[in-house]
């Protein structure tokens, strides 16, 4: 499995290095959108405003949204472009399960994406003059969020496998995603609290907010629930992908666009 992961990493790295224009364009767009919003907020609030820790939390939220958006559409986007260029069936001729191939590929792509994200966050920090600290405990809720994100990514991949064209669905999901990552579900009460735990990624994002914006300690109970939530969505996504693969083979839908 390590060999295959390294092969995926090499493939992702070569494509990134060989066509840097796309990556640099991405960094420029994501950073300038944030900076534009930042300048607008500053203008509205006037010269006396001090954003303080809240700006830190917004930067973290924005970075997280960028990362999760990438993860979410990685598998579906890959499937769509491979169906278009004609390499998809070659991937299904592998003795490994397709879900394994796509998961390893998505993780390899995440490594490259992390590199881009570091550039974006560094640029934003330089532009805003706020420098974040990154406590090691961030990794755990981030992992919970990524598990959920990969689960949804496989679900999107399943749709892509069956429909091939999923741009419209991607646009809708992207807005829903913004809600899931920014809605303070940890502050909801009653039924809303239960719904908050059931929504994908929302619990993990809440724990991250606590750590980053509110300066709180890690709440192990909520982290446990967030991880459980991540595992459930990941398993559901994998299950759906497996079903879509069988369906596509049954109806001869693996190729074609």
């Amino acid at each position: 499995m390590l060999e295959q992961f390294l092969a995926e990493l090499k493939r992702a790295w070569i494509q990134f290095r060989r066509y840097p224009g796309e990556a640099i364009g991405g960094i420029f767009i994501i950073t300038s959108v944030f900076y534009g919003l930042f300048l607008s907020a500053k203008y509205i609030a006037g010269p006396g405003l001090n954003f303080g820790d809240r700006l830190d939390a917004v930067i973290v939220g924005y970075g997280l949204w960028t990362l999760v958006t990438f993860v979410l559409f990685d598998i579906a986007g890959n499937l769509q472009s491979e169906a278009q260029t004609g390499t998809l069936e070659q991937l299904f001729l592998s003795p490994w399960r397709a879900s394994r191939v796509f998961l390893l590929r998505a993780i390899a792509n995440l490594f490259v994406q992390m590199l881009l994200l570091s550039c974006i966050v560094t640029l934003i920090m330089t532009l805003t003059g706020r420098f974040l600290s990154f406590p090691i405990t961030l990794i755990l809720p981030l992992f919970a969020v990524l598990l959920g994100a990969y689960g949804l990514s496989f679900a999107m991949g399943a749709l892509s496998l069956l429909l091939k064209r999923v741009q419209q669905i991607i646009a809708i999901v992207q807005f829903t995603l913004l809600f899931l990552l920014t809605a303070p579900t940890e502050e909801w009460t009653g039924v809303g609290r239960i719904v908050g735990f059931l929504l994908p990624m929302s619990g993990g994002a809440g724990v991250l907010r606590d750590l980053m914006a509110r300066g709180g300690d890690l709440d192990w109970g909520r982290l446990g629930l967030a991880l459980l939530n991540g595992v459930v969505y990941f398993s559901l996504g994998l299950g759906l992908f497996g079903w879509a693969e069988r369906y596509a083979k049954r109806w001869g839908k693996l190729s074609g666009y």
Partner: protein
Amino acid sequence: MISLGVGKMGDQQILQVEGLEKSYRIKKDWIRAVRSVSLDLSAGEVLAFLGPNGAGKTTSIKMMAGLVRPDGGKVRILGGDPHREAPVLRHVGAVLEGNRNLYWRLTPEENLEYFGVLRGLSRRVARSRGRELLDRFELSHKRNAVVQQLSRGMQQKVAIAVALVHDPKLILLDEPTLGLDVEATMVVKRLVREIAAEGRGIILTTHQLDVAEELSDRVAIINQGSIVRMARTQDLIAAFSGGLYEVVMEDLPEAIAEKVVALGALVEGNTIRVPETDLLYGVLDIVRPGVILSVSRQQANLTDIFLELVQGDR
């Protein structure tokens, strides 16, 4: 169901296909895309799978490769079921029709390494196999050029090399010479012969019947989802060639022509068509001592046979 032919080497069965069935629903109607397709393939044998568009060739090939699940029947590759035992796919290499089969942003060498690992090799072995294949396919000078910059013929050679990187026993080639120029077609034909000579079994589909005639040991002609004829290529050609001879004379006086026609031959200008071998010598006696320019036996080709079988089936 069509009975199976005997393989070229006859010793090792690479592929066994029995009673493959596949139906698709288009709106409310069910279309039987493949009906009772059975065949086998031995080591070193090339089987040409021929048929008009929509006859079920590609669906059959994809069922053999585990990419489309059959509704009925079974596929065995070296005894294993590609639909249930994924490791069996290690024995399969494929170049599929209309597909690029390669990553265009990677070089041939990078493609070979990536797909080698994807097929279960270690990166070290995939790299070294890749280099061997690039040398053998005379592509070493292009090893560092990205695939999208290569000519169509070179891309097809790389695709075949990728299909071979994990040393599979069964090679499926769907339209391997489609869109290639004359020179590239010759190269691909040579490679197919070499690959088969190494003891691999090859199934190829093509619309270029001259290519099929030249390369295949056996042909299977499929029409409307069923195999309508499967035989050794040369046997099929001989069977359809019959006993027709053509005798071309320098000059054929009318009196002699009449005698020849009375014997049962046909005359067209200075050419005499003799329908049976037994009549040939009688015709030669009649035309003696006229000058004979040529005597030839009419040889059917795969195109004629294909058209006769496919159109006769409609």
